[in-house]
């Protein structure tokens, strides 16, 4: 089996996880910027984090021959403080030229507040001005339906944004249709409790097809499973999905989306 982990917060994971992922067939890992589980006290904290994402983490992944890509932003969980967000937005361009940066992400909303919306719009503008791909985090649990609708409205209101260059992550049964119908890519996050289980994700694939959609583990410091994608692929096989369908979802589709960035190289070409 071969697969790509298109959304993994590897700074939170052990080196053993890198080893397990590569042994399971992982060909590349992509790491969006996110919330550390606590609020950073200043823009300098983000500066250090962006250094970690663009310098240190690619070196750690390379110990296992694993290409590492990243996305930059201030996470919506830290977007209520507009002054801090502006400071962080100002330092992002310094890192955009790093060879492993694919775009702006994971931006989006958390509690669907006005300030979160303001910071989302600023990120979208930053991405548009710099021709960057966009990776979007949609809110958790009871906030997801409303937040996904608000996010899609922001993206569609900006004429510079092309939906095929944006992935809307963490979709579930009540949001996947609106995302795909508007022409965006959809990501399904495989979490044991709070997002999609493997079986629900496979149900969604069987109902909505295999175009513009991927699965990820979003493994981080919380309850999450770094091998969730290959485990889901195994479940697809058990359910009788054919090998080409599985390969498209877990390998070809992430490549198709991320190859829109000139920084992404197909694993077989490395």
């Amino acid at each position, binding site marked *: 089996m071969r697969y790509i982990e298109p959304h993994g917060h590897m700074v939170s994971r052990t080196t053993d996880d890198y080893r397990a992922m590569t042994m399971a067939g992982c060909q590349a890992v992509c790491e969006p910027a996110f919330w550390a589980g606590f609020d950073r006290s200043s823009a300098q904290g983000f500066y250090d984090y962006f250094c970690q994402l663009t310098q240190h983490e690619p070196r750690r992944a390379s110990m296992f021959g694993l290409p590492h890509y990243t996305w930059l932003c201030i996470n919506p969980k830290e977007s209520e403080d507009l002054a801090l967000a502006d400071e962080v937005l100002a330092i992002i361009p310094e890192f955009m030229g790093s060879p492993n940066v694919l775009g702006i992400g994971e931006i989006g909303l958390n509690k669907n*507040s*006005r300030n979160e919306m303001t910071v989302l719009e600023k990120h979208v503008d930053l991405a548009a001005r710099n021709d960057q791909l966009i990776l979007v985090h949609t809110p*958790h649990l*009871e*906030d997801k*339906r409303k937040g996904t609708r608000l996010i899609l409205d922001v993206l569609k209101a900006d004429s510079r944004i092309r939906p095929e260059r944006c992935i809307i992550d963490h979709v579930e*049964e*009540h949001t996947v249709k609106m995302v795909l119908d508007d022409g965006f890519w959809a990501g399904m996050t495989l979490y044991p409790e709070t997002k999609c289980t493997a*079986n629900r994700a496979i149900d969604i694939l069987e109902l909505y097809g295999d175009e513009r959609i991927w699965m990820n583990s979003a493994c981080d410091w919380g309850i999450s499973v770094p091998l969730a994608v290959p485990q889901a692929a195994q479940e697809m096989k058990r*359910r009788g999905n054919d090998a080409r369908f599985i390969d498209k979802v877990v390998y070809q589709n992430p490549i198709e989306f991320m190859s829109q960035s000139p920084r992404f190289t197909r694993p077989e070409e490395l």
Partner: protein
Amino acid sequence: MADRKNILDLYFLDARARLIDIAAFMDRVDRAGGGADFRYDAFREALKSLGDGQPGRAEKVLLAFSDPTNEPIPEATTKAACGAWPGANNG
């Protein structure tokens, strides 16, 4: 199209176990003291969509727990989501 028997062969025991877990959870809540809770109210409301015999049950369950409003809130006073919408005046 998948064969129903195959799907049941694969998933019946797992679903059965989860259903018993839900039943035990509800018994546990009922045994416990305390007043009404919006999360449990939403839970019982969500259960109704399992028995209507119509497809799209997972989506209906998710919507039963979701914030149905469409406007941004004035300010985020917490980072966490609790799994059910507390209502417009209880966020």
